[in-house]
């Protein structure tokens, strides 16, 4: 039997900031709704091969484009393909791009920002100057250029988008680390004799996590938008694969006759973006990222 439990079984359970944040988040209906929808989307995307009502390749040229019906809940496209199936498979790619590219950005940005912020001095100056220069580059145009030059390669798309988004992440992380470093509790940890690695692990990272979580949640929708934007222009995902952006692009071409081909993929994308933004805003409020003292 651990002594701690014996000695402190009379100790009242404290409520950690994470716990408080969770309670606040739970009260925010929009954020909960966003989280729920997102969870649903992710689960559906993961299980698509088993859930999809039709096979991805199945065409029915005789059927052609039909409005929503009992057999095809969201209708079919001009090749007679089931739109719901298309949207489900497209969602897999759109969400994957969103999550993976954000993960790339997160990894590079947080590492970069943490090093710059903690080491400080000249290293920081050089590292952040580089970020400034990259920031000033017109990346949207560059990504288009990359996709043109190197063909429309999905891996490249991940990398290119991740490479743009890490800059903001690095800035946020750096300013977090820098302001935390000046906090008195970090100074107290230094005066106790903790090593820099332990200080980062125990005192800096847990306190920098809030803004990073919030920003990550808000980066995913902007990444998904970027992918959809490129796919719409025909510079992103290429057939036979599909994504929501690509479906919207097809839908826009034939919207006059078959408006559902535009509206349903549009709804899928917008709903997901809504959920992510609501969740992100909710997390921002719950985690109190503006950083008040109490």
């Amino acid at each position: 039997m651990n002594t701690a439990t014996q000695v402190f079984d009379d100790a009242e359970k404290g409520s950690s900031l994470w716990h408080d944040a969770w309670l606040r988040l739970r009260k925010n209906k929009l954020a909960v709704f966003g989280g729920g929808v997102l969870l649903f989307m992710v689960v559906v995307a993961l299980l698509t091969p088993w859930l999809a009502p039709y096979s991805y390749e199945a065409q029915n040229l005789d059927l052609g484009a039909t409005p929503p019906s009992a057999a095809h809940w969201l209708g079919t496209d001009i090749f007679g393909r089931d739109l719901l199936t298309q949207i489900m498979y497209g969602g897999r790619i759109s969400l994957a791009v969103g999550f993976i590219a954000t993960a790339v950005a997160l990894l590079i940005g947080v590492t970069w920002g943490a090093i710059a912020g903690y080491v400080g001095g000249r290293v920081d100056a050089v590292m952040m100057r580089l970020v400034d220069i990259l920031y000033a580059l017109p990346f949207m145009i560059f990504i288009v250029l990359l996709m043109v030059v190197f063909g429309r390669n999905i891996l490249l798309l991940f990398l290119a988008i991740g490479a743009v988004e890490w800059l903001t992440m690095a800035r946020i992380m750096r300013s977090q680390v820098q302001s935390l470093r000046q906090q008195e509790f970090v100074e107290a940890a230094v005066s106790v004799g903790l090593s820099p690695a332990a200080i980062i692990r125990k005192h800096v990272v847990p306190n920098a996590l809030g803004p990073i979580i919030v920003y990550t949640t808000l980066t995913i929708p902007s990444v998904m938008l970027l992918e959809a934007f490129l796919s719409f222009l025909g510079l992103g995902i290429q057939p036979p694969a599909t994504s929501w952006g690509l479906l919207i692009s097809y839908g826009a071409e034939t919207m006059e006759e078959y408006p559902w081909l535009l509206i349903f993929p549009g709804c899928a994308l917008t709903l997901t973006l809504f959920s992510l933004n609501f969740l992100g805003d909710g997390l921002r409020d719950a985690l109190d990222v503006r950083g008040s003292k109490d």
Partner: protein
Amino acid sequence: MALLSVDNLSVSFVTRNGTNKAVDNVSFSVEQRQITAIIGESGSGKSVSCYAMLGLVPSPPGRIDGGTANFQGQDLLALSEAELRAIRGRDITMIFQDPMTCLNPFMKIGDQLIEPLTLHQNLAKGPARARAMALLDEVGIRDPQAAMSAFPHEFSGGMRQRVMIAMALINEPKLLIADEPTTALDVTIQAQILRLIAELQTKRDIGVLFISHDLAVVSDIADQIVVMEKGKVVESGQPKAIFDNPQHPYTQKLLAAIPSGQKAADTVAPDPLIRIEHLRTWFTPTAGAEPVKAVDDVSLEIHRGEVLGLVGESGSGKSTLGRSILRLVPITGGQITFEDTELSSLEGRALKQFRHRMQMIFQDPYASLNPRMTVYDTLAEPLLLHGLVNKAGLDQAIRELMDNVGLARSFLRKYPHEFSGGQRQRIAIGRALATRPEFIVADEPVSALDVTIQAQILDLLADLTKEYGLTMLFISHDLAVIRQIADRIAVMYHGKLVEEGSTAQVFDSPREDYTRSLLAAIPGANAA
């Protein structure tokens, strides 16, 4: 007839978590040409009551539940917003606590200053500016012409407060509400501003409502004192009556909390624990810029077992000196010797091992505790790091620490934000004592706390110093606090050590002009 008479004012804040009565049936008055002071600690409702009667409490969440505020035959609380606006800034004006944030940083001082004139008196810009400049001169701004076209950030805190005062007086108001107008200022500046307010008040025959947490400050200037606690007026009367014969227990507690008295001098043979020789700590803000000489050639001895009070105003380098000794900031030159070890050259592992012998207590208990760690973890960290206890002894050691700093053991698994400021400071003290240090730097450990809490923490520190046989460098801007706790005093000014001596000697026969001006600035000549 009273200039302002507030009767049975009640204000509450309605939030999602319920209704909170901030001001409960409060009555007070300000006589013509007199100063009424409202005294109370944070959360006592002293500011809210004044803001409420001027319609400056945002609603929601604020709500005025009842009462009257008669000013020149009108009930302020019954006026419409437009009618109230006509009075605000003309007949009743305000100055606030933090002059650094109360002036619009985007507007020139002149433009802000003439705003009340052009607004309430329809004065043209030309004459308004002339009047503003005359007033700036009167409140002691040296070059009014230049000040008019300056932006607030070009001025120091004291200067900005003078501008605020000029702005408040420009319409020749009948009542001035001063909300902690000197709290954010250095002692000597505080004394100047207090004198200025008192002077202008007599000269212009205005009534003043002076809100403060500091009885000593108020005792010098008030004609009438109102003591508030938790939204209620607990006592009111003339200063003499309040100080000599306080009726309410809370008033008695407040008075008892005023740091007073002088520590009885110990007659121990000086045995230097720490020797500081020609210490320099300079900062270079940006490459190539002139260095800021925060600590400049300071030599000082700290004797074993003593509390050395280090006094100075903001920017004097007193905090940097404390941090330099603990090697928390890189030092530029000089030597620090701890017993026989030269601290200034210790690095890496050697420094780390040395750290448990000296610890620090910080000013802001809200910032000095990691918000994501429980009290248990905060206290366990130094103990485990230095291997001072084994796993089995850990809980026992932490229990003892909690007892020693006066915290209930049941708090161990709570997080810092669940505690009050005073409790947090106790936790921070516990952390500093965990390693059983010989030397502690206490950097303004009580200046962020309410008066009554301040007294408790000071007592705790005095007890612990004795119990643990500590040597302490006690840094403060507050001479009364220092006098109460320190055996010897060192005075810093602009990075230099200007005076050093026993507490009695520094207070009774200061050698330097600067020390004399500091002593003269201590408020509360009437309070003692």
